[in-house]
């Protein structure tokens, strides 16, 4: 008779696995990718592929030759980092810079901390901020959307809608005079504007977000509290003076807010564990995003806002515990 296995309970396990979650996230990114390939053409495809391949390559090299441990490049997490990094840089960015961004994302932000699950900061955002500081010129040129462009060089670039409004207001112009200079809201929602590869279409990103909510890959707390606090804060400022502060809807559909709120801030590894922790973290992200967008030096504040809140996650986890059973006795 063969020997029986003896192990602790439970004896059944969910079908869910790390790679299933990761590939679920990747699948949900398809609408956003398609929109960006439509508006930025071949250049967007090249940037995305370069980032994915180099992220996987660097993870492989580091795991195989530096750490000499198990290689997990196909668990999907490096692919996500690559895709998300590509989504938050301009499609016109030279590919060698994309490679450097990938090295920073994987090498510095992920593997130095111990690999998947151990990093404090979102790897894709670290890569982006590194590129922003190192190559400020290239990182501030955003291609104008066309359809199915195959152009890879001499792409026509221009400022993003957020930058148009921010600079205009800084020079004393009125918001109502500036808005005609940017695409209409429907176009902004669908992604017909200058911006980073995958962040332009709030609509496509929302589709992906709904898919992830249904599949229970993410929960509602972080996106809702993040977007909600942006709307409330921007709304208060807008009601104070609509000629200085642009309306909240504009904030929602421009820049990297939607991608940040649905994909970056919800990164499991770098966000809080408990429901109230997630809500506090989301509000913090929303608050910092508006503060940087309106009062900071950069037109866009999503990347910094999330990275700053990432740093607070261990404290939030300590301060906001789940409600324990039988702790507060409510009877009746």
């Amino acid at each position, binding site marked *: 008779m063969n020997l029986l296995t003896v192990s602790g309970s439970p004896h059944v396990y969910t079908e869910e696995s790390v790679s299933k979650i990761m590939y679920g996230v990747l699948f949900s990114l398809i609408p956003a990718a398609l929109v960006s390939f439509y508006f930025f053409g071949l250049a967007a495809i090249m940037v995305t592929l370069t980032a994915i391949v180099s992220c996987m390559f660097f993870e492989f090299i580091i795991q195989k030759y530096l750490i000499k441990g198990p290689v997990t490049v196909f668990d999907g997490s490096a692919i996500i980092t690559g895709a998300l990094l590509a989504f938050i840089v301009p499609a016109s960015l030279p590919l060698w810079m994309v490679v450097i961004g990938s090295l920073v994302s994987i090498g510095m932000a992920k593997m130095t901390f111990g690999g998947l699950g151990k990093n404090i900061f979102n790897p894709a955002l670290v890569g982006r901020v590194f590129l922003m500081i190192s190559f400020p010129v290239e990182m501030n040129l955003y291609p104008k959307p066309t359809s199915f462009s195959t152009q890879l060089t001499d792409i026509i670039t221009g400022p993003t809608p957020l930058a148009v409004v921010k600079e205009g207001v800084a020079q004393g112009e009125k918001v109502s005079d500036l808005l005609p200079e940017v695409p209409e809201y429907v176009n902004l929602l669908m992604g017909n504007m200058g911006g980073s590869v995958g962040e332009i279409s709030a609509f496509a990103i929302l589709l992906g977000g709904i898919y992830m909510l249904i599949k229970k890959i993410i929960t509602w707390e972080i996106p809702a509290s993040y977007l909600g606090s942006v709307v409330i804060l921007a709304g208060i400022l807008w009601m104070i003076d609509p000629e200085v502060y642009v309306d909240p809807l504009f904030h929602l559909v421009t820049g990297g807010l939607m991608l940040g709120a649905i994909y970056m801030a919800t990164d499991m590894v770098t966000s*809080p564990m408990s429901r109230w922790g997630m809500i506090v973290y989301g509000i913090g992200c929303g608050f910092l995003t508006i503060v940087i967008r309106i009062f900071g030096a950069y037109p866009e504040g999503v990347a910094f806002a999330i990275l700053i809140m990432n740093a607070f996650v261990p404290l939030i986890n300590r301060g906001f515990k789940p409600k324990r059973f039988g702790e507060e006795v409510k009877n009746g």
Partner: protein
Amino acid sequence: MKTFKLGGVHPPENKLSQSATIEVLPLPETVTIPLSQHLGVPANPVVKKGDSVKAGQLIAKGEAFISANIHSSVSGTVQKIDDVTDTSGYRKKAIVIKVEGDEWEEGIDLSKDLIKDITLSPKEIVSRVNEKGIVGMGGATFPSHVKLMVPQGKTAEFLIINGVECEPYLTSDHRLMLEKAEEMLVGIQIQMRALNVEKAIIGIENNKPDAIEHLRKLLTEYPGISVEPLKVKYPQGGEKQLIKALVNREVPSGRLPIEVGCVVHNVGTSFAVYEAVQKNKPLVDRVVTVTGKGLKEPSNFLVRIGTPIANLVEAAGGMPENTGKVVNGGPMMGKSLSDINVPVTKGTSGILLFLQAETSRKPVHNCIRCGRCASICPMGLEPYLLAVLSSHNRFEDCEEEKIMDCIECGSCLYICPSGRPLLDQIRIGKNETGKLIRSRHK
């Protein structure tokens, strides 16, 4: 539909044996009756080697407050009283009896007649339940008479009857509710009288609609008892979760259900109470589900205590060749066995056979901090944190994070996408934290 609020999971139900009627298993050649089949102090033997015993005869006495009497489940000769491997895998003292015929102790009513009139007083009921060795049949095996005595200064308002059977695969309680419903209802009335309560609620998950309907039809004759269908969610059969689901009260951390006016008994226990009080029959047999995907005939058997588990497996079609694991109990909380020649005890609700392909755990990956373990923990704990604290020997922090509240339901290990051994580490942590707490009282 009612359920508990905090956490919970829904593993595939796999109730393969739910339509298999309860069959009486033939007597084995020998029975091995452990002296410790209940929570608390082991019973002391009152027979010796060579004695002949009858079925239903007292063979070991539970002398401590939390202990239980043990009766012979067969008639025959005591072969030895010795250390024998039991379902826990440890060698513990047991009485081995060679079966000869099937002669019962006098005064035990073996007829199938339903006796509805309850003649005993509350005190007499408690002492009868004690005398007949009744323990919690859901698996925890806590001596039942202790739970029928309300501590001074407390009052019981509700008798909660656990017909949830939230463990996947298991169907013994389900079959009992269908086939022995009236006996069980009389048993509940007996318990109500002992506890002096007006209301009893039977909680049943709505994956057993036939049991809910069957009991509801009978209820008109049993005032004070109601049936409440519950949404299927594990671990709803946990005492604290069931109370929360049925009467929306939360048992405070570290306290007992009586604190919120509730006493919880299992449907199997209610049936055993009926037999003890109305039929004078001690707890010498029970219903056991034998199930598994590779098994020819997943079944429910009425088995004498002490029967080797191998006999049950044989009766259900034999052990499939590619069996990888055998579990005593359900898949979420049951204990795996190293040997199937160990005896059925009072707490054996099911025998579950897993094929080799179902046996291994998932490969372990890094924790990706997805927080699923914390969101499904029915006690509102943070399993990922407790597991890390425990593996770093930080038991004072474990205590602070309420590790002792863990009910070991296994939901965290079940749900973890990284296959981390969360509950294994938490168990070690609970053990060490328990030692730490006890050392302070010395």
